[in-house]
């Protein structure tokens, strides 16, 4: 019953899930079991790269949930991502212990050379993973709740909402740049040693993180499916299409938006937390409004309003980016910029929509395809 509702009703989603599952099985084997020499070996570089993409995909999923379904465009989702990342980063910093440059058992290096005498209060507890994990969920969640409560209650919507979310992430970026904040200023948090006792550079750890990201993504996908296929999901869609009608049908639109926004923020936070140990650094740059806009573009490219579209988008754009920055280092911004324009102009439904169109034209030619 539930599986029917979550899965078989959307083929594309199942396909994407299947692929992710497949990579989660194949990649570790190809990376660990298969010898370097063999052409089928997947290098650690590819693993970390894929791991990064998985986190991005999770982030895109989170945005698609509120933008694609509730029509709320947040240009500040990078902020939740970064906050989750910082929470994880703080845990990793505490794990370094006295292996820092200055060998201070308690203080991270950047605090030592800024003459901090003792650990700021908000750093306490992050030496315990469960606490960090809790914060990864709570901090973005609470911020989203407060912000959303203010915004939705006063019916800030559409463009205005987009712009103030942008202001939010911008303000956070400036704030985190300040060294007084105690988050390492511009350099952020880096030089991590190990996570949960495993060396962060060990291939096995990387695989572990990779798997964690993959599983997180799949679970998140199912969770999102559950929401959008529930009655609440229909309400959310109807809010997107005819907000006041929904109101007059007796729904408190604000609370729906709010809870969805919070959930999405939490997903973003988790994505950030998984991202940091794999790239090995978190710094205020992650708050930059540009990142958030780019994120929107991933979703738009993949196809907003279809959850798996977001995943497809995140993968394709970032893969393209990796390739371009390697092969056309001077000019890669041109294709990227062009992509944004073209997607909005000719692919309002994104790549997924394109495939759909292609499928339809095929199916109309072959009638028996019809279910």
């Amino acid at each position: 019953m539930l599986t029917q509702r979550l899965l078989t009703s959307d083929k594309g989603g199942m396909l994407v899930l299947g692929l992710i599952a497949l990579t989660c099985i194949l990649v570790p084997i190809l990376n660990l079991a298969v010898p370097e020499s063999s052409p089928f070996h997947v290098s650690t570089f590819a693993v970390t790269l894929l791991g990064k993409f998985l986190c991005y995909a999770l982030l895109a999923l989170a945005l698609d949930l509120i933008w694609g379904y509730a029509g709320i465009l947040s240009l500040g989702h990078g902020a939740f991502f970064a906050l989750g990342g910082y929470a994880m980063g703080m845990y990793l910093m505490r794990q370094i212990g006295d292996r820092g440059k200055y060998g201070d058992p308690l203080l991270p290096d950047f605090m030592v050379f800024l003459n901090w005498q003792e650990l700021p209060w908000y750093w306490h507890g992050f030496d315990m993973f469960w606490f960090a994990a809790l914060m990864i969920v709570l901090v973005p969640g609470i911020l989203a709740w407060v912000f959303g409560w203010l915004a939705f209650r006063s019916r800030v919507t559409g463009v205005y909402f987009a712009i103030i979310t942008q202001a939010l992430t911008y303000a956070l970026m400036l704030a985190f740049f300040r060294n007084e904040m105690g988050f390492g200023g511009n350099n952020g948090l880096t030089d991590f040693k190990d996570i949960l006792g495993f060396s962060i550079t060990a291939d096995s750890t990387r695989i572990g993180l990779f798997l964690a990201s993959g599983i997180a993504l799949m679970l998140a996908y199912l969770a999102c499916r559950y929401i959008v296929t529930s009655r609440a999901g229909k309400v959310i869609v109807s809010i997107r299409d005819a907000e006041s009608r929904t109101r007059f049908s007796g729904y408190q639109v604000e609370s729906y938006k709010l809870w969805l926004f919070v959930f999405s923020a939490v997903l973003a936070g988790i994505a950030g937390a998984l991202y940091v140990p794999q790239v090995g650094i978190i710094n205020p740059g992650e708050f930059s409004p540009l990142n958030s806009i780019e994120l929107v573009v991933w979703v738009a490219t993949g196809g907003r309003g279809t959850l798996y579209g977001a995943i497809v988008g995140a993968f394709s754009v970032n893969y393209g980016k990796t390739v371009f920055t390697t092969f056309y280092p001077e000019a890669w911004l041109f294709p990227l910029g062009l992509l944004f324009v073209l997607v909005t102009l000719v692919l309002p439904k994104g790549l997924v929509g394109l495939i759909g169109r292609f499928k339809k034209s095929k199916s109309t030619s072959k009638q028996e395809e019809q279910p």
Partner: protein
Amino acid sequence: MRGGISRPNFQGESPDHPLKPDSDTTMALLKKSVCLWIALGAFLLTLPSAYAQSPAEPDFPTLVDELASGSLSKRGKTVEAIAATNHERAQTVLKALLEGSLESTRSDPRQVLIETGTDTYVLAANGEAVNADNLGRTKRIPIHNKLRSQIKTLLAQMNLSAADADVRLRAVEQMISDGVDGDSIALLQQLKADESSSDVQDAMDDAVALAQLESSDNETRLNAAKQLRGSLYPEVRGALQIVADNDSESSIRAEAQRSLDSIDSKLKMFRLGENIFFGLSLGSVLLLSAIGLAITFGVMGVINMAHGELMMIGAYTTWVIQQAFPNQIEYSLFMAIPAAFVVSGLVGIAIERGVIQFLYGRPLETLLATFGISLILQQAARSIFSPLNRAVSLPEWMSGSLQINPAFSITFNRLYILLFGLMVFFALLAVLKKTSLGLKVRAVSQNRPMARAVGVRASWVDAMTFGLGSGVAGIAGVALSQLTNVGPNLGQAYIIDSFMVVVFGGVGNLWGTLVSAMSLGVINKFMEPFAGAVLAKVLILVLLILFIQKKPKGLFPQKGRAAAD
């Protein structure tokens, strides 16, 4: 407009006219005193070199040629010697040296020339024009700070008797900052007798008093302290402070303290004025960068993420103009403004026709598309102009500051940009309110189908409106080029602030934009001193976010049922 102007690089009167008498009688006196004093001064200054050189002073031309060669310290001595000759061209040569327009040929014997324009030279010694072609590569005669301040001092002493009162005033002030000694007192008192301008006289009094603060005679010191009450020269304040802290005579200490207090109370007032001006100036920058958006975003509902890049284009246009007319730097801006308007405007129209026209009513899509465009424009700037910043030079009249008094001055570029910002604003207001385009724009923005029905070519109006907004962005770019870097990243720095300004002011309301820009500027400037630049900005953003919660439609919302849904 030369009224009380201090230039960053010291300005005497223009090099090509030497001392002019204002009346024969004073002239004679002046000449006498000047010779006397300069000889004296030069003697004192040049004691070491005086011995080094032959008793018979080398004549002016030789000295000038000596400038070309030898170490910096030797050059210093030569400079003093030149001043001592009191030759009529001495001042011109020294000024040229100071301003870096004194060059020497590589050929032997080296000729020393003054570059009067691009590739036009005159002989430094006698001012005869020389043919630039057969000079070969010339090389600027370098000087360093010590030498610079030395020359300034010398020039100041010469300028004490210049024709222009302002020049004399600067000269006295220069002496004050150099520190006044016994001989200068004598000279100043002498000159003051027949000084025409009261400002200069007051300055001279202050200078004398300043020197007298160190005198051994209590009476003199006391009077000096009195005299200096309310004088705003920083040096004076410093000196008084010293006296007030550790003078032997308690009465003098008290007097000095009183003078200090009177000075400080004045200073406080001026600081307030200064802060307000700073705020307004920042506001004007915000206004300029936001006002284009107020049209494209406010009136047309297009979120133009490429707005910043349109400013960038305007700034680059300024640079191109300056490259095209290297000799017209003074007027370059007046050429750049219309040029930038047209260029950015056309680019804007291209964007509108090419992309935005397909996206009306989908503001969020315009955001994505224009963001892509902004990336492309940035990279284009990198490919065309290289990623390096471009040097846009300030015209003379843009640099320097309007000196209201030694403690309070308003920088010209800021002042002009403030005025310019307001001009643009009101011009735009007029266009929207008075012209038929404006009428059509408002019609289309309020009710597209209706406007069509009454025969407005909506698409044409859209293009024009967007072009207008973009053009204004270009103009803003010209202004920015006078304040900050001209490079591919120029636009990035301003885009978010501009959106904040528009939203805060209330979309679709130009007056709102003006008010919000100015108030944000002033608030920011009053926060900075205690919050620090970064925190001030963060606080403002937070305030903005909270404000929008309270009044989602900004300061001056569009009212009525139309706005309701």
